[in-house]
């Protein structure tokens, strides 16, 4: 029982991690608390549904389509909205992403309806046995995807020119600009990356939950809680936080009852913020946010 809860908790947590990492990346490069992150995912899931249902694409093609669509969405959001007000204080930026949230919610509802739908492809329900616990194949596949994306991100940030430039912008945008780094392009890249991660988060979680305009709302909030574990700054911290939330809420759901699931995440965050305001893995860096 316990081992099983643990593994499926890790599987859910790895999906939260995708959102949490996107949240951290956008926040540390642009000071933006991005409320539209979940809706990027939601649109991605809808794109995948349309590709599979109406155009007969397979799962991987649908995933690719969602990735392209979401990256476009992220870039569009930066270009049309966020860049216009980039110099404002973070509260204005935050409210503007709420505007994007409303628009994407409305667009999804307008074109695809508000009722919840099942994702057209479901995983093979026969469970697999790993180290004494039983786990569904869908969870295994999702964890594999999440791990692969984590690896890609690691390589990107560690070895590629753009990734290093992105870290430089995180550390100090002004110095980075003086050193010849195209900060505007990097910011655009940041939003593109948010879209990339959003596509995976949406398409991978859709078979587990459902597809609807509000499908990602709760996931987004948990992603934020996880991001705070990393002090809204550290990517490994956010991933670890997401896994912890996944496990804790699954245990709480198993032992206390399912309506304590969301409450668990927030009990954790309130405790954490009260005791360690910089986040569990946050760096003691004074940032005027």
């Amino acid at each position, binding site marked *: 029982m316990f081992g099983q809860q643990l593994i499926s908790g890790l599987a859910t947590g790895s999906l939260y991690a995708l959102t949490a990492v996107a949240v951290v990346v956008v*926040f540390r490069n642009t000071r933006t*608390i991005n409320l539209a992150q979940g809706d990027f995912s939601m649109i991605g899931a809808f794109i995948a549904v349309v590709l599979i249902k109406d155009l007969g694409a397979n799962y991987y093609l649908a995933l690719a389509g969602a990735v392209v669509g979401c990256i476009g969405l992220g870039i569009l959001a930066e270009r049309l*909205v966020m860049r*216009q*007000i980039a110099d*404002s204080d*973070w*509260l*204005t930026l*935050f*409210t*503007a992403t*709420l*505007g*994007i*949230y*409303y*628009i*994407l*919610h*409305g*667009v999804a*509802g*307008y074109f695809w309806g*508000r009722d919840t739908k099942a994702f057209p492809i479901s995983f093979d329900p026969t469970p697999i046995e790993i180290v004494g616990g039983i786990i569904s194949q869908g969870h295994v596949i999702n964890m594999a995807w999440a791990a692969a994306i984590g690896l890609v991100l690691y390589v990107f940030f560690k070895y590629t020119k753009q990734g290093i430039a992105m870290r430089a912008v995180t550390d100090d945008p002004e110095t980075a600009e003086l050193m010849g780094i195209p900060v505007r392009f990097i910011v655009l890249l940041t939003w593109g990356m948010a879209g990339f991660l959003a596509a995976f988060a949406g398409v991978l979680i859709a078979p587990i939950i459902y597809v609807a305009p509000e499908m990602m709302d709760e996931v987004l*909030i948990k992603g*934020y*809680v996880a991001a*705070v574990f990393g002090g*809204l700054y550290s990517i490994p911290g956010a991933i670890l936080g997401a896994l912890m939330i996944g496990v804790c809420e699954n245990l709480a759901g198993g032992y206390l009852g399912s*309506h*304590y699931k*969301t*409450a668990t995440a*927030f*009990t954790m*965050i*309130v405790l954490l*913020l*009260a005791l360690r*305001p910089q*986040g569990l893995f946050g760096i003691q860096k004074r*940032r*005027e*946010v």
Partner: protein
Amino acid sequence: MKNAMMDKSTEFSSTALRTARKLRSARRIQAGRLKWAGMAGLFASAVVFPLAPGVEGWMASEATLIIMYIMAAQGVSILTGYTGLVTVGHGGFLAVGAYASALMTMHLGTDLLTGIIVGGFVAAVIGCALGLVFLRLSGAFMAIGTLGFAFFIGTVVNNVPIFEGREGISLPGNHVLGYEIGDIGFFYVSLATLAITTLFIYCLVRSAVGRAFMALRDSEKAAEASGVNRVFYRTLAFSMSAAVTGIAGVLFAHYVNYVSSEVFADIWYSVDFLVATVVGGSAVLLGPFVGGLFVAFLPTLIEFFVDQPGDLAFIIKGGALIFVLIMAPAGVVEGTVRFFRWITRIRKETAHG
């Protein structure tokens, strides 16, 4: 205020300087009077509004709803605008006020005025506690922490038996000092409460307490170094802010005569109040009025023009929000003032050739 005369005055003799100063202070007094006249006009037109011909009962109800949004946004503006602590959790205080008054009315049979006082007080106490818990938070962390508070209240309301969860508590008709009041009467009670909270904020901002809040907002370190007690004033700001929003919650509960977790566990109230504060201008007296109108009246307005509400209304709402933020990042009130100053300057420049 920066007119051509002021800019050149340094080169002139001290008499010119004195004249310019006099002119400026006269203008400032005039601007102050204008503000008072505007406020008084606003409230006077609100007073006669239900009596005007062609106004039906539902319009007064709609106006009451707007008043509640304005009041809730005022609560947020004390904390977010004047003290600089962004809150996404004031829906929680709305619920605290609503349930405090609802339980009082149900179990003790108190009237609306007692409900307002007790609801505000209970919200202030909880706000004080929250302020102490989140003493070390700021910026985005505070926003996420207060969001957690709103969820916490939602969970409590959903699961603790005394609050009746989704079943909800139905309230009897509203009484004030023994008299039963209808929709119009309720509108006047709300309006009077709004007048009091507005006056309260006006005085607060001009008092030493308000100055301490703003000093903390502008720089915590500098404020502390100048002898502002950070712990005390932060907690005080939390309490006052919670009380004002809590009172809005009391009115909300008695407005619909029903409280349930379906309504008060909803996280969107918290977000709406913050949006109202940001849109109007967070540290301006008139800001919550504009913002409350934006948040509460825009959906009604959209529904009036668009056949298919819901989705299309969502898109328009989002577009309007982004448009306002791009045009006036510091809020509509500030944006309007700047716009008129710009017009005046252009006109002056063309007049001078």
